[in-house]
């Protein structure tokens, strides 16, 4: 090779080396130095973070009956940058989803990459639309898996279960209070699309599986709930009260077995419900409890050993002027024992019970029974109630509070107070959640009974229980609350209705009955409250005559449902008692006559 040829050869080689060096440097520049910038740009254009929605946990009753579950639906979304034929797409969506064409055109012409077209489309309709889009070769429309919340029992237990909002966040009831457990954790996946909008599976990036929400088991037994719902509906039909509440609670553990309020609403049609229908009146409604509050005065006096159950108190023959204001009884009573004060429901007697221990001690007992503070049940929006401290009491407050005036309590607080008597003096936190489990049955959290304090001694509780048995007897104010074959302890309440603008509404009453069954070994405590019930005669609007029979119906059916053993000796004793003691038997016969007048034949 001559020198000139060699030079040419070297030049060509150098040119190639230079050229490839430039390519190499450019490659290094793009791949290494500008890597992050271009990778970001590429990701922005092609990589999507696909959210994998976690399924919300279901809610079950104590027997694992489903109260709230999910049904799969699809959300139709569009990527306006990938639409192949806007006009055809609009026409198809208009026909299939019944959305106005103008609205669709505005949305799809926006140029946005994530446009929600329709939510909660049933899976079958979504599949049909998907096929039509595929057949028409229309691109840019996607389907996201979603779920909608369904409540199979409609309005039953509506105030307890609650509901979720648009984004599946609980906003009322257990749905809200147990949100942390029910919600679960969404997963995600980074994916890349090709030009046709299809995922390129090998290019999948980081991925995290979703964790479905946990199952929440309630203490409520739908069998009992159904009984309560039937009875509260019957009461609404019969007495047309403004509001009504029935609660059943297991006194030893604080478990709520059933709870119903009226007015109510259908959880599946919640958008049509009025705010008044959505209130869980058992925990957010404040009422003057009336005579049911006398159990607090009696328990306080007995527990302080100021009096015994058979101690006699003079009840002023029905009218007592105290502090410059008259206090009446519904009948003129002379001397009554503490037991009879409860059985006959003497206001003057109850006032004297409170006076025997004084303002401060009485207030302490009211607070120890749990009034004036939230019970702690796992439901949102519970109120404290109103219990004023003794410093703000008037001179007559000590005589009015024992009969359930000048205090504001919730129905649940009253039920809890009676449960304290029923379970030997222990104040137990009421609870609605039994446990939280994973879908495979693994227990995540189990709620145990919480005993807050020993309010009164077991002996005092027993004494009060004995007195309360007399209330549901031929001598008491609630003979109509009796259940054949069972001993019941209970207390009636009839309070004039408080006017929100001050004072009381004339002729309007909040009637209630609070009791437990069987009296010896209580299986449940029950409360029936009717606000402004309408009776055939105004003088029949008493707790014992209106709420008592409702309690009887509920308790009888509940006892049968729980398979409680009836006290057969009592059933046998009645005819004997009628023969040997004709006078009480006459009174016994009078009770159904009054009830028949009350029911007016409309009750089942």
């Amino acid at each position: 090779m001559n020198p000139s040829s060699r030079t040419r050869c070297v030049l060509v080689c150098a040119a190639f080396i230079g050229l490839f060096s430039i390519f190499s440097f450019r490659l290094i520049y793009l791949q290494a130095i500008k890597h992050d910038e271009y990778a970001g740009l590429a990701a922005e254009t092609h990589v999507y973070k696909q959210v994998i929605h976690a399924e919300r946990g279901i809610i079950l009753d104590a027997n694992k009956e489903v109260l709230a579950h999910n049904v799969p639906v699809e959300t139709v979304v569009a990527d306006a940058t990938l639409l192949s034929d806007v006009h055809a797409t609009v026409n198809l969506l208009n026909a299939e989803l019944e959305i106005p064409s103008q609205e669709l055109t505005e949305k799809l012409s926006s140029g946005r990459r994530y446009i929600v077209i329709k939510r909660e489309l049933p899976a079958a309709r979504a599949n049909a639309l998907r096929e039509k889009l595929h057949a028409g070769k229309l691109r840019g429309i996607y389907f996201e898996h979603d779920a909608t919340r369904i409540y199979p029992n409609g309005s039953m237990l509506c105030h307890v279960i609650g509901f979720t909002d648009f984004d599946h966040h609980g906003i009322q009831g257990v749905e809200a209070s147990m949100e942390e457990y029910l919600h679960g954790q969404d997963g995600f996946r980074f994916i890349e699309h090709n030009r046709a909008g299809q995922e390129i599976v090998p290019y999948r990036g980081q991925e995290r599986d979703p964790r479905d929400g946990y199952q929440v088991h309630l203490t409520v037994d739908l069998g009992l709930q159904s009984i309560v719902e039937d009875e509260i509906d019957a009461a609404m039909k019969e007495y047309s009260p403004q509001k009504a509440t029935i609660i059943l609670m297991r006194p030893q553990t604080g478990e709520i077995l059933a709870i119903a309020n009226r007015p109510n609403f259908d959880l599946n049609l919640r958008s049509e419900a009025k705010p008044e229908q959505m209130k869980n009146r058992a925990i957010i409604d404040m009422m003057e409890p009336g005579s049911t509050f006398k159990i607090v005065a009696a328990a306080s006096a007995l527990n302080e050993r100021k009096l015994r159950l058979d101690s006699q108190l003079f009840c002023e023959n029905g009218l007592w002027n105290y502090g410059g204001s008259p206090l009446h009884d519904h009948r003129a009573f002379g001397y009554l024992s503490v037991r009879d004060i409860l059985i006959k429901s003497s206001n003057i007697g109850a006032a004297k019970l409170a006076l025997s221990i004084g303002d401060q001690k009485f207030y302490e007992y009211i607070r120890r029974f749990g009034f004036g503070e939230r019970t702690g049940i796992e439901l949102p929006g519970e109120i404290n109630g109103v219990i004023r401290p003794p410093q703000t009491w008037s001179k007559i407050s000590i005589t009015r509070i024992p009969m359930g005036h000048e205090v504001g309590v919730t129905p649940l607080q009253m039920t809890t107070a009676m449960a304290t008597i029923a379970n030997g003096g222990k104040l137990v936190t009421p609870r609605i959640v039994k446990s939280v489990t994973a879908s495979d049955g693994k227990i995540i959290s189990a709620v145990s009974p919480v005993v807050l304090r020993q309010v009164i001694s077991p002996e005092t509780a027993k004494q009060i229980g004995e007195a309360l048995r007399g209330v549901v007897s031929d001598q008491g104010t609630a003979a109509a609350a009796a259940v054949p074959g069972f001993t019941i302890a209970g207390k009636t309440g009839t309070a004039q209705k408080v006017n929100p603008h001050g004072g009381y509404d004339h002729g309007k009453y909040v009637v209630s009955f609070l009791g437990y069954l069987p009296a010896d070994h209580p299986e449940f405590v029950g409360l029936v409250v009717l606000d402004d019930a309408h009776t055939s005669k105004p003088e029949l609007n008493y707790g014992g005559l209106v709420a008592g029979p409702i309690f009887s119906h509920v308790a009888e059916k509940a006892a049968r449902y729980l398979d409680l053993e009836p006290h057969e000796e009592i059933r046998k004793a009645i005819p004997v008692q009628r023969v040997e003691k004709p006078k009480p038997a006459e009174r016994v016969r009078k009770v159904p006559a009054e009830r028949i007048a009350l029911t007016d034949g409309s009750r089942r």
Partner: protein
Amino acid sequence: MNRSRRRNCNTVNAASLARWIVMTVFLALAGLAYVYLTLQLYHLGERRKAVENELALLRTQNDVAAGQIAALTSRTTLQRRLKEGYLKMIPVSESKIVRLTVPARPTDEEAIQPVVNPLAQHESK
């Protein structure tokens, strides 16, 4: 001439040639394998996607069916059907229940006895 041609003729190094051929074949096979495996990867990706879709569809169908079962077996629905007479059920009367435990007898004859509520008793029958 023949001597000269024979002198200028290059010899082929068979071992080297073989090495090159092997390397070329290896590179070619590697390239083909790469292409094949890449295609397989895409193919498997498509299959994976199809299986995932099928699984999602089955899950959806299962959830829809579970929802229908929950709705049909809900207490409200069953009670409605009972009232309609679709379900024939008769409540067990008290007289048909045999109890094995003996009820406790009240010790005190003077103790307050609960009264019978005849209306409720009538309804329980």
